C-alpha cells in the first residue's frame, strides 16, 4: 500500500476577484522511501498542493478529493488530528531560512519543540536529542551553540536547523518546498546532499518542490510537471527528461540558459505570462500560450495519455507534437 495517495484533488481559494480553482484534479502516489519532485513556475499550485497535505491552507479554502496518508484520509480531518501529524509523521522545510525561525527563541527550544510536543520528552532529554540532530545536519560546534539565537547563524546554517526541526520526530514523509532557492549556489549543493543522505538513511519519502530542473535531475526519481493547477506531465525523472512530451515541459527545458552558448543568443522564453487563477482557460491550462493550441484545447480537459514506464502526459495533440519534434531534431 502506498504511503501517500492523492486522488482527484481540487482546491478552491478566495482571491480578490472571487473564488478560483488553484488545484484542478491532481493525482499521484508515493511509496515509502520514494522521492518525488514537483516542477513548475510560480503560481502553478505546487506549494498549495503540499500545504494541503499538511492541512495548512487558509480557513476559507475548499478542498475536495482524497489524500490518503498511510491509509488514513487527510481531507476534512479535524485540526487536532492534523496537529498530531504535522511535525511528527510529516515534516516540512520551507524556502526562506532567514525568516523561518522565531528570532526570540533559542535553537534548542525550537528544534526541541516537536520532540517535547509529540514524544513528551523532558527538557533535558530533548536537549540531548537536539544536540545529536544538530551534529547530524552539520552545525559546527553544536554543543556550545544550543542556546544561541537564529540571528547568530548564517542562511545555510539556518536551513540546516530547519531540516533538523523537520526530522526531529522521524517522519515518514519529508516535504521540502524550494529549500535551496534562497541560498548561495555552493551552499545549495551541500543542503541538497544533506537532504538526500538523510532521506536514504532514514528511509523517508521525499517531496521536493523546485523550479530548477538541475536540482530535480539530481535528487528525485519521480517527477510531476505542474501548470495552472494541473499536472501536465508526470513519470520517472529519466523518462520525462528524455521524452519531454508536453509542450510546456519542452518550453521549460528550452528556457534554461546554457553554458557555452555563443554570444548574442537570446534566452528562450515561453511566450506570454501565467494568467491569474480566475482567468485560466476551462480546458487545458496551457491553452493560448501553447504554440500548438487548437480550439479543442480551450474547452476540454485533456485526458492522461500513458507512455511507457508509467509516464503520463495530458495533451490531446501529443502524437503530432512528438512527430514534429522528432522531425526538427
Amino acid at each position, binding site marked *: 500500500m502506498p504511503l501517500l495517495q492523492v486522488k482527484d484533488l481540487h482546491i478552491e481559494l478566495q482571491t480578490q476577484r472571487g473564488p478560483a480553482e488553484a488545484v484542478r484534479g491532481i493525482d499521484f502516489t508515493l511509496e515509502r522511501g520514494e522521492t518525488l519532485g514537483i516542477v513548475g513556475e510560480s503560481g502553478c499550485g505546487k506549494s498549495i498542493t503540499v500545504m494541503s497535505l499538511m492541512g495548512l491552507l487558509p480557513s476559507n479554502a475548499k478542498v475536495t478529493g482524497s489524500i490518503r496518508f498511510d491509509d488514513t484520509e487527510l481531507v476534512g480531518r479535524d485540526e487536532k488530528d492534523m496537529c498530531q501529524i504535522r511535525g511528527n509523521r510529516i515534516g516540512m522545510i*520551507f524556502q526562506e531560512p532567514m*525568516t523561518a525561525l*522565531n*528570532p*526570540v527563541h533559542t535553537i534548542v527550544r525550537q528544534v526541541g519543540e516537536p520532540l517535547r*510536543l509529540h514524544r513528551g520528552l523532558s527538557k533535558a532529554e530533548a536537549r540531548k536529542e537536539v544536540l545529536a540532530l544538530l551534529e547530524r545536519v552539520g552545525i559546527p560546534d553544536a554543543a556550545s551553540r544550543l542556546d544561541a539565537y537564529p540571528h547568530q547563524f548564517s542562511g545555510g546554517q539556518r536551513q540546516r536547523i*530547519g531540516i533538523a*526541526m*523537520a526530522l526531529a520526530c522521524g517522519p515518514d514523509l519529508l516535504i521540502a518546498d524550494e529549500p535551496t532557492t534562497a541560498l548561495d549556489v555552493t551552499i545549495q549543493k551541500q543542503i541538497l546532499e544533506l537532504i538526500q543522505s538523510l532521506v536514504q538513511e532514514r528511509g523517508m519519502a521525499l517531496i521536493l518542490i523546485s523550479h530548477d530542473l538541475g536540482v530535480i535531475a539530481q535528487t528525485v526519481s519521480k517527477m510531476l510537471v505542474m501548470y495552472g493547477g494541473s499536472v501536465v506531465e508526470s513519470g520517472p525523472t529519466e523518462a520525462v527528461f528524455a521524452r519531454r512530451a508536453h509542450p510546456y515541459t519542452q518550453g521549460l527545458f528550452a528556457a534554461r540558459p546554457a553554458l557555452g552558448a555563443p554570444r548574442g543568443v537570446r534566452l528562450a522564453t515561453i511566450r506570454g505570462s501565467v494568467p491569474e487563477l480566475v482567468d485560466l482557460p476551462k480546458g487545458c491550462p496551457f491553452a493560448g500560450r501553447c504554440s500548438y493550441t487548437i480550439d479543442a484545447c480551450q474547452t476540454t480537459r485533456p485526458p492522461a495519455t500513458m507512455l511507457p514506464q508509467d509516464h503520463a502526459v495530458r495533451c490531446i495533440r501529443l502524437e503530432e507534437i512528438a512527430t514534429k519534434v522528432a522531425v526538427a531534431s
Partner: protein
Amino acid sequence: MSLFLFKRLATLIGTLIGASVIVFLVLEILPGNAAQMLMGPDASPDAVAALAAKLGLDQPAWTRYWHWIGGLLTGNLGDSYAYSSPVIDLILERLALTVPLALLAMAFTVVIALLVGVTAAARHNKLGDVGLMGMAQVGIAIPNFWFAIMLILVFSVQLQWFSAGGFEGWGEGIFAGLKSLLLPALSLAVVQAAILARITRSAVLEVMREDFVRTARAKGVSQRMVLWTHVLRNAMIPVITVMGMQFSELLAGTIVVENVFYLPGLGRLIFQAISNRDLIVVRNCVMLLAALVVIVNFVVDVLYAVIDPRIKASDI
C-alpha cells in the same frame, strides 16, 4: 550589554538635565517676577521685594538654577509657600498614594489590553474582533474624568459599594487602601487599555503573518499555542514601547482623576500648588513627574534588550 546600558544611562541623564532646564525656564524666567505673581498685582512693592529676597529671587538665574539642582540632589527642596512645610515631606506623603495608584492602573491596563487585543486578533475579522475593537474605539473617546464620575454614579451612588472619594490611608490596612484606589485606577486604566488593546491586536496580527509562525504550525503546534508561545513575545516589542509612553499618560491623568475622587495624591498637589501659585512646589513636582517619565522610558529600553536578543547585538 554594558555598553548598551551605559549609552542608555547617558541618554537618561542628558534628558533629565534638559528637562530640568526647561522646567526652570518656564516657571522662573517666563512669567517675569515670580514674587510679583505670588503676591498678586495689588501687593505693595516692599512686600514683593521682601518675598523676592526670601525666595532668593534677587540672585541671578544661574545661581538659582544650581541652587535648585543642588537641593534636588541632596533632598532639600525648600519650603512650600502655601503649606509652610518642607516640600520634600509633602511630596513623599503624596507619592505614597499616587505611585500605588499608577501601578494599579498600569496593571489593569496591561491585563485588560492583552486579553482584549490577543482575543480580537485570534478572532480576526469575525464578530468578536469587530465588537471588541468597537468597544476599544469608544474607550479611547471617553474622557477619563467622565468615566470616573460614571463609576462613582454606579458604584457609589446607586450600589453604594464604594465611597465617592477620599482615601483611607494605609494605616487602616492594605485592603482598605486599595479599595479606595480601585475606582480611580479603573478610570485611569480604561482609556489606556483601549489604546493598548488596539496596538496589541495589530502587533499580533502582523507577527502572525511572519514565516516562523508557518514553521511552528508545520511542527504541529496548535493555533492557540502558537499565539501564546511564539507570537506574543515578538508582538511585545511595539506593545512595550507604547506601555512606556502610557505610564506617563497615566501619571498625568492622576492630576485630573485625583481631583474627581478628592485623593490627596501628587496630582492633586500639583494642581493645588498651581492654583496657589506655590512655585517651589510646582517646580519640584513637575521635575519629579518628568524624571519618572524619563526613568520609565529607560526601563522600557532595557526591557527591549531583554525581550529581543537581536537588540543587544546591534547596539543602537
